[in-house]
């Protein structure tokens, strides 16, 4: 039930008990916009249900818990879809469980990619399936990435098998200043998007700084064509959003507006802002804008120059989602350096390694290793287990799902990867991956490998990838 629906319900109840005065008051405040009472708050609800799993114990592995902790020769117990015990070698092991001896191997929480376009820019990359940018207006907060997702993208299965990715955020593209709402998925193949939707995860709002919006619209002879145009259109939009939000909060009558609903939800802290932004100076402008209009930026995405303002990002509690070593492909990426992630981390700001790429998502552990090595060479000593936070609890927090996943803590979702070696090594791959306790990838079992509809019956279907 949405906010207006709830308010009408309250009005009806009040009318019954408090008499005509209350009824009149509420009638004034309750929106009377068309059909609002019939619209549920969550109209595209998750239908995801964890698949069955066996109670399983992984014994003897090195555990990175995803929050910076490490246990050598550890024990992890998964049952009923949850992590039910994590500890050292003395951790009691229940009877009647599947016991996996994992000496010499590593166990981590599943990798979380905060920036993916799987499903909305799927494989094959043909125009007919290219659904990531509603590049017809710079302001499209009314579109939802989840409505573009094609669940038959083989990229999901590769991210699972080769990357150990168990949760991921699918964002609209960056052509627009306000690109639309994002969605967080469990990386479990399904017939529908709803079947993958992470239950209860907040949506995000994709915003974009810099070159893309000004290029896409400037080339059409439209605003914005400059960075100042970007900011002006942003601010005008936020002004409207504030008015809409105030009226909505006050229960005043107004026509329902999908774009404004998204922005009002941002202003009320229900939707998290994920802002594509490369340059340090532009991130600083966005921080000021967020204060001007009273919203919070969760994460700067790409944040190629985050290292230049790591102090500012720490002070404002904003995460940076970064590549391991991308640089220079466009002007605003010119100052990319391999030490970006460790420099942000050392400053005490929140660092995340992201992919934005169907191939990179299969090797986020290696992208993190690039950053880790570069940091160590400049004297930033970060342990492996602490570096794993870049792929686990940090993105989980930035996506608002850290209470449910992102680390191996008792009671959290059993989203777990068993790696066949140290996951920062190029020579290491996932051996098994569980999502909510269900074994969904097993390198030793060809049938525990997803083959999406698009691949089925085609050459290469079911091949080791």
């Amino acid at each position: 039930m949405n906010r207006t629906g709830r308010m009408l319900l309250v009005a009806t109840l009040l009318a019954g008990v408090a008499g005509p005065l209350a009824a009149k008051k509420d009638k004034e405040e309750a929106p009377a916009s068309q059909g609002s009472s019939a619209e549920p708050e969550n109209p595209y609800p998750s239908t995801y249900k964890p698949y069955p799993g066996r109670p399983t114990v992984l014994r003897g592995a090195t555990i990175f818990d995803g929050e910076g902790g490490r246990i050598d020769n550890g024990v992890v117990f998964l049952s009923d879809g949850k992590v039910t015990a994590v500890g050292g070698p003395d951790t009691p092991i229940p009877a009647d469980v599947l016991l996996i001896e994992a000496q010499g191997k590593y166990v981590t929480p599943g990798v979380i990619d905060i920036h993916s376009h799987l499903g909305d820019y799927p494989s094959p990359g043909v125009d007919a399936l290219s659904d990531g940018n509603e590049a017809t207006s710079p302001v499209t907060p009314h579109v939802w990435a989840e409505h573009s997702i094609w669940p038959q993208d083989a990229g999901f299965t590769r991210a699972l098998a080769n990357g150990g990715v168990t949760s991921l955020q699918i964002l609209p593209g960056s052509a627009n200043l306000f690109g639309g709402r994002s969605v967080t998925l469990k990386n479990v193949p399904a017939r529908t998007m709803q079947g993958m939707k992470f239950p209860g995860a907040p949506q995000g709002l994709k915003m974009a700084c810099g070159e893309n919006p000004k290029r896409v619209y400037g080339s059409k002879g439209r605003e914005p064509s400059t960075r100042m145009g970007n900011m002006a259109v942003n601010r005008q939009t936020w002004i409207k959003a504030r008015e809409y939000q105030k009226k909505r909060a006050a229960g005043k009558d107004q026509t329902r507006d999908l774009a404004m609903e998204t922005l009002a939800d941002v202003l009320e802290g229900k939707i998290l802002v994920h802002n594509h932004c490369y340059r340090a100076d532009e991130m600083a402008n966005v921080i000021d804008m967020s204060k001007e209009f009273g919203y919070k930026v969760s994460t700067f995405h790409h944040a190629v120059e985050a290292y230049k303002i790591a102090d500012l990002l720490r002070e404002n509690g904003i995460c940076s989602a970064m590549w391991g070593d991308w640089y220079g492909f466009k002007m605003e990426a010119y100052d990319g350096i391999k030490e970006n992630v460790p420099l942000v981390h050392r400053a005490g700001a929140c660092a995340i390694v992201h992919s934005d790429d169907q191939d990179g998502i299969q090797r986020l552990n290696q992208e993190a290793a690039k950053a880790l090595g570069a940091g160590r060479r400049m004297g930033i000593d970060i342990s492996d287990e602490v570096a794993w936070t870049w792929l686990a609890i940090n993105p989980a927090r930035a996506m608002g799902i850290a209470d449910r996943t992102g680390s191996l803590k008792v009671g959290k979702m059993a989203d777990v990867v068993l790696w066949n070696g140290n996951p920062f090594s190029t020579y290491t791959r996932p051996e098994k991956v569980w999502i909510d306790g269900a074994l969904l990838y097993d390198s030793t079992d060809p049938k525990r490998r997803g083959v999406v509809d698009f691949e089925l019956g085609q050459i290469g279907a079911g091949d080791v990838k």
Partner: protein
Amino acid sequence: MKTNALILPFRSGLSRTVDAGRSRPTLLGFARSCSKQTAVWFVVAAGFATAPALAQSVAITNATLAIGDGSEPIKGGTVVISAGRVVAAGAGVAVPAGTTTVDAGGKWVTPGIVSGFSRVGLAEVPAVRETNDTSAGRSPFSAAIDVAPVINPLANPIAISRTAGITRAVVAPATGSSIFAGQGAVVDLGSDLNPITKARAFQYVEMGETGSAEAGGSRAAMILTFRMMLRQAQEFARAPASYDGNSKDALLNRVDAEALVPVVTGAMPLMVHAESARDILAVLALRQEFSALKLVLAGATEGWMVASQIAAAKVPVITAGLEDLPSSFEKLAATQSNVGRLVKAGVSVSMGMLTGDDALQLRAATQQAGNMVALTKVPGATGLSWGQALRTITSAPAEAIGLGDRFGSLRAGRAGDVVLWDGDPLEMTSAPVAVWIDGVQQPLDNRQTRLRDRYATPTEGSLPKAYEW
């Protein structure tokens, strides 16, 4: 930390010992430990080196040494380079008296990494059109285009790649308005103004989805266009003076026709970009009509499906290695096991930047190779041994382009392209400690390392950041 000087090589013949194992494994640490020695350094202000680079006589001892020819690394190895070339490499190699000696302290030494496919030096910032010389869609020329004179040795991606241990690269033009892109080059990534190892080293042609589009819209038109263009090149070769590039039947102007002559005669390798099994077979079949074609396959994502045919045709393959998605209809059968299966079938396989970032990320080579090793531990997958994997990014690309006797391995007589690493070179946490190209020790800083140093502390000191240099 000030790094405003680029350090060029010291003179040969001065005996020094640098213990890379003892010194801090950074290029700065290495430079510092070197500068304590008696060697003469040319210190050049940032800008770029104009001082002549001198090849050293240097021996690197006590190394975990990989030759690059497919053999596995050995412990306690020595490599000796002199006059710009490898003199000897292996276990028990004697160090000639008076040779500068570097004690690797057990660390890894390999030949310089070779990018089997790139566009390095053709673009500084690929999305900034003014800096991008990879293709020319509005040019009247195609096959005759020659990238050698315009490869920019001062492009930042060259220095950045060099810092990562890349010492040579195959550089291909991209197509503009024809299936033929023009003549590619082989370059070194040394800090000097002479990048060319071999100009006009190969011709590049698109023979898949891109080629179909360039040929007017179908693969049938693409094959026909290819055949008719080569026939016109043959006509040109028979009677250059009478070839009329302006006739309405001419598909090639005179200069493009002339440029294709060495392709038809087999004097110049033809690098063909084809991904799908069927396109690869169509390309191999072209030898029935043009028997001299010296083919090199680029891409070949579905090569494993026709591995025996490629092997029988003795055509080397340069591929991206990590493609495993049906990202287009010409890559439906993509798998990371492609490389391993091709090698197993007897195909010579190299890796390069076939899937983008070809002007920038040549340093992905070690990641591509390392992942081939990873596959050996994945049930059902086909990977490569460590030595075979290194070969795909060293000697194999050099051989594919016909220059295997010049560089790409530490066999005697090859170019003195050597990298000393701070760890296993195929691990992403590792990096070079020292790089030699043609026996000349190279600077390992670049604008990325300068940015890193400036912002090691993000806040301003007593002056603005702009004054920290």
